[in-house]
């Protein structure tokens, strides 16, 4: 066929074009826990005048500009104070955040542990000069220089806050109130078809966390360090869960709407989702169940290619200032990173409820982190499944 020949020819022409155009990857930088060497990038030396513009890539609820609720707005005061006009892009999963950061269009990002090291390793973010962020001094000590926000003692970001993924339900439709993650895994659940789960490979860790408590024989120590047997058990559990699920969510607003309309009555959610649903008039409750929970500890990071670094530093200092950090922590439903924020929350018990200064409690949450083939729990006799395998398995689970 003539057509095909022409197409082939043109494709070949394009091929030559590409071969010289695409950046070839640095194969050496494969993740090995702290073993990797990040590209050497300088941190900002001193703060200059704001550039007038800032693109913020944030978890939903972290950079509210009044578009969800006119009363919830801390972006506009920042714009007025700093002169940096802010464009906010919310993302639903850490993977999405990494993809968006790679477009080079964002200046700062609120990265969870499963994104931060990958961003550091790929050179998408640069070290942060914490002395240019005065409010950093007030950040709880147990959040500074941790494995997810620093490499070899070099800080790559400013801690923002931390919390847990919650078991969530409609209190008028689900009784008795669930106290264990088993509510989401019971094949005979009477809420079959009304359950909702997080749409990301990292959700496999939730299944592993459940198995850690309910099948001790598997010997799971960390839900992010799964050898092939443990991994398969978690994947199988999720495959059995799928018929119960009405929708997987990655858009918290869509989930909140399903909870409000009653198309979902039980599932995993963030506190902010619960708050939005409650504002919409739905009786929704949430808890950290008996098995514990997966969770996040988030860090504000600066894009290496950012053209607006002064605004980025101004933003980082602003967003963790006691009052704003308190506002965000209360709105999103997490523990603030700034120790002075606890005095600023409208609910005086907020920091107690979320164990803000309690490093012992904080160590119990299984924070999101990127699974790599070298087991993160310290085992050296087996290989663990890396995130590539998690990603493929996730497609399989959804079927």
């Amino acid at each position: 066929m003539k057509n095909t020949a022409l197409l082939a020819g043109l494709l070949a022409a394009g091929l030559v074009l590409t071969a010289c155009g695409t950046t070839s990857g640095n194969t050496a930088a494969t993740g090995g826990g702290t073993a990797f060497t990040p590209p050497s990038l300088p941190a900002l030396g001193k703060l200059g005048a704001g550039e007038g513009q800032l693109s913020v890539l944030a978890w939903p609820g972290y950079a509210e500009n009044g578009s969800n609720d006119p009363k919830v707005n801390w972006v506009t005061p920042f714009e007025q104070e700093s002169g940096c006009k802010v464009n906010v892009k919310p993302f639903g999963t850490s993977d999405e955040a990494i993809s968006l950061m790679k477009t080079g269009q964002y200046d700062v990002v609120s990265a969870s542990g499963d994104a931060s090291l990958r961003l550091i390793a790929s050179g998408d973010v640069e070290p942060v000069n914490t002395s240019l962020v005065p409010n950093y001094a007030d950040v709880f000590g147990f959040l500074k220089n941790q494995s997810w926000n620093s490499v070899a003692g070099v800080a790559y970001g400013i801690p923002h806050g931390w919390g847990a993924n919650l078991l969530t339900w409609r209190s008028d439709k689900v009784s008795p109130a669930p106290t264990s993650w088993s509510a989401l895994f019971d094949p005979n659940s009477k809420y079959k078809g009304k359950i909702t789960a997080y749409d990301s490979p990292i959700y496999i860790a939730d299944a592993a966390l459940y198995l850690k408590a309910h099948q001790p024989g598997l010997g799971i120590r960390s839900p992010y360090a799964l050898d092939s047997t443990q991994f398969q058990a978690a994947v199988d559990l999720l495959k059995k869960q799928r018929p119960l699920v009405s929708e997987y969510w990655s858009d918290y607003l869509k989930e909140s709407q399903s909870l409000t309309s009653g198309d979902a009555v039980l599932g995993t959610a963030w506190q902010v989702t619960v708050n939005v649903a409650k504002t919409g008039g739905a009786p929704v409750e949430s808890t950290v169940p008996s098995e514990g929970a997966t969770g996040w500890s988030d860090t504000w990071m600066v894009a290496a290619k950012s053209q607006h670094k002064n605004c980025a530093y101004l933003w980082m200092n602003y967003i963790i200032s006691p009052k704003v950090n308190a506002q965000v922590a209360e709105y999103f439903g997490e523990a603030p990173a700034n120790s002075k924020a606890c005095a600023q929350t409208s609910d005086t018990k907020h920091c107690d409820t979320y164990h803000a200064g309690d490093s012992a409690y904080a160590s119990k949450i299984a924070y999101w982190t990127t699974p790599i083939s070298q087991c993160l729990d310290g085992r050296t006799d087996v290989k663990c499944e890396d995130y590539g395998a998690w990603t493929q398995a996730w497609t399989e689970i959804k079927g």
Partner: protein
Amino acid sequence: MTFSRTTRRVLLVALALGLAVIYFPLLVVFLNSFNSDTTFGWPPGGFTLEWWGRAAANDGALAALRTSVEAGLAATAIALVLGAMAAFALQRYKFIGRNPISLLIVLPIALPGIVTGIALNNAFRTILGINLGLFTAIVAHATFCIVVVFNNVVARLRRLGNNLEEASMDLGADGITTFRLVTFPMLRSALLAGGLLAFALSFDEVIVTTFTLGAGLETVPIWIYDNLFRPNQAPIVNVVAVVLILASTVPVYLAQRLSGDSASGGRL
């Protein structure tokens, strides 16, 4: 006519039912723009004019409308030029490679949008090193808009033949004059119909736009996508949709009038 009264009646009823199905969801959208229940449960919770009032004052929607119109007009202009050139080449000349080229023109709209989207995204960012912006979205939109202009112009050229142009040339007019005074006037309505469809296509495109529009910019569909699930914004989205439907009847009607003979009012 060979068709019995029953056949006629059955088919006309089918037509009426089909139109009812087409318009029922739009009616739901219209009613929901007055629904005080933000999850749009049925029957509606109550009547409110709040969303209409708030839509009028919504800066995001207005900015998105401006971006959409800019992108649509620029993409349509490019598509008009390229589509018409290609139509002339393929309709007026016989040459080897004619078939593959006609396939090539259809390709951007026949391949799934996500393929076109990620291909262009990859080309802009990693090969050409261009930052995504309005320009990249315009290029992407023009690519899949060419085909509708091409189809309209080809259909017109096929019907017209080239007698009039030859007559004009025989009478001593040069090529440019002939184009200006003979060819172009004959094509005007086909170009209009094609251009209008190209604009409509660009105006409602989501998938390719997602991958080619720069951060911080929003076209109407992207704005809708960002706001669809927001509890206080979703009803405003309904208002915007109703306004768009009502506003669109004017250009659609005009194109119908002007294209006259071309029965479909422009070919897809």
